[in-house]
């Protein structure tokens, strides 16, 4: 009898320890929660029964209490391990695009001058040379209205 009472107190103590983290509000104790009041009510009801049927009820209560403690402990450990080893998840579309050097559709494009196929490389070379020698070594024949050509006429 004394052994079963200590077992019952042990289960109650474990239940208190497991239910305590679920009570987050200030000025609220586990003793004020509905589930604790229900558990204590069951224990008091069992205590009043002294017959052999009462002993069987006490055994059943202890078994259920133990199952509840194991459920709460298992849940706590499961979430602890799950949070510890949880992966970062998949890369977002933005991160994948940056990794590959692409831009997303909503990002502004770079306004670089696009080189068309019709432009010949000689004309480009000539225009670049004429722009570099604009101070007067060779006339700018690409622009027929330039002052240099009009002076030649």
């Amino acid at each position, binding site marked *: 009898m004394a052994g079963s009472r200590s077992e019952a107190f042990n289960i109650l103590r474990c239940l208190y320890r497991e239910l305590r983290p679920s009570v*987050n509000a200030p000025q609220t*104790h586990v003793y004020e929660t*509905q589930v604790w*009041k229900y558990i204590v009510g*069951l224990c008091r009801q069992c205590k009043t029964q002294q017959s052999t049927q009462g002993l069987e009820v006490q055994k059943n209560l202890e*078994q259920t209490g133990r199952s509840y403690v194991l*459920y709460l402990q298992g849940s706590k450990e*499961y979430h602890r*391990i*799950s949070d510890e080893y949880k992966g970062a998840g998949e890369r977002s579309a933005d991160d994948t695009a940056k990794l590959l050097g692409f831009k997303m559709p909503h990002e502004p494009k770079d306004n670089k001058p696009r080189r068309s196929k019709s432009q010949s490389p000689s004309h480009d070379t000539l225009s670049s040379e004429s722009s570099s020698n604009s101070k007067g070594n060779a006339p700018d024949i690409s622009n027929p209205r330039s002052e240099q050509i009009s002076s030649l006429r």
Partner: protein
Amino acid sequence: MNASNGLLRVIQNASVNLSRNSQSGKNVGYVISGVFKRHYSPQPLKRIYACVNVNPASETSSSPDSATTYEITLDRKKLRTPARNIFQVDNPGVAYTVGAEWAAQGKTLAQSSMHLTALSNTSQDNPTKKTKYDLSTEILTLLTSETIIFRSPEDSRLWEMQRDLWDPVLYWFQDEFSIKIPIVSGTILCPTIPEDSLVSLRNFILSHSFEAVQGLAFSCHTLRSVILPIAVAKNRLRADEAVRLSRLEIDFQSSHWGKVEWAHDLEYYDTLMRTSAGMMFYDFHTKIPYTSSQDLSKESKPLDTTATESNAAAVEAK
């Protein structure tokens, strides 16, 4: 042509339902089963309630002997099942533990690990329209693939461990229900157990309510065993002992080859959660007496989700 027209109508109806938006409005998917629609979100649901209360529902029956029905309110809103019925249970133990489950949630809801709520929802909605006779047939079919009758002759140490730990439970079960179950080794084929020998076990299962058989069946499927959950139901084993016995070979191999915490331990605690929830559900509907004389009408104080660790330490210091 008629079959394709019928299929087209189903797809059109489904597309109409898919166009509805949920309350969250984002990332909502619909799974249309043959019985009812469930919508789920791949994003974890945030906790939007502060206070959880368990209240007796308003009694419609005038007779004083009618059982009290309990409902759960989340901030004055009644909790509903996946089939959109109001969550109602007759058993106060189930009601208060389910309420504690919802109160224990953090900033996001871990719905996949709320097994007591899931068992209550399944019992109330019964989406697969099963009766306790269907569940008992499932359990008896599971007996032929019982974990503790399949032995491993390859390793002598494992064989001895299985003999020392599994045989006592097996012999107890055979004596309790007058069933002769053969031990199987060296083959994966399930043994044949005559139907006549299962009468006592079938009567034991059917003597309980639908909810109790639901809890028992859940534990049987979790442990891949019928003998171990019934041993827990008969107070012969604890839930964690039953889980250890069902995982005997896994523990033996991992003790030799090494253990991976994020696989082995995670699976152990998941199995422990499911088994203990199933057996608790069974106990509440069989062994635990209803208590209607307690005055639990006082509402619990609102739970502040933004409480700091200092508040928890203050409670601990008390």
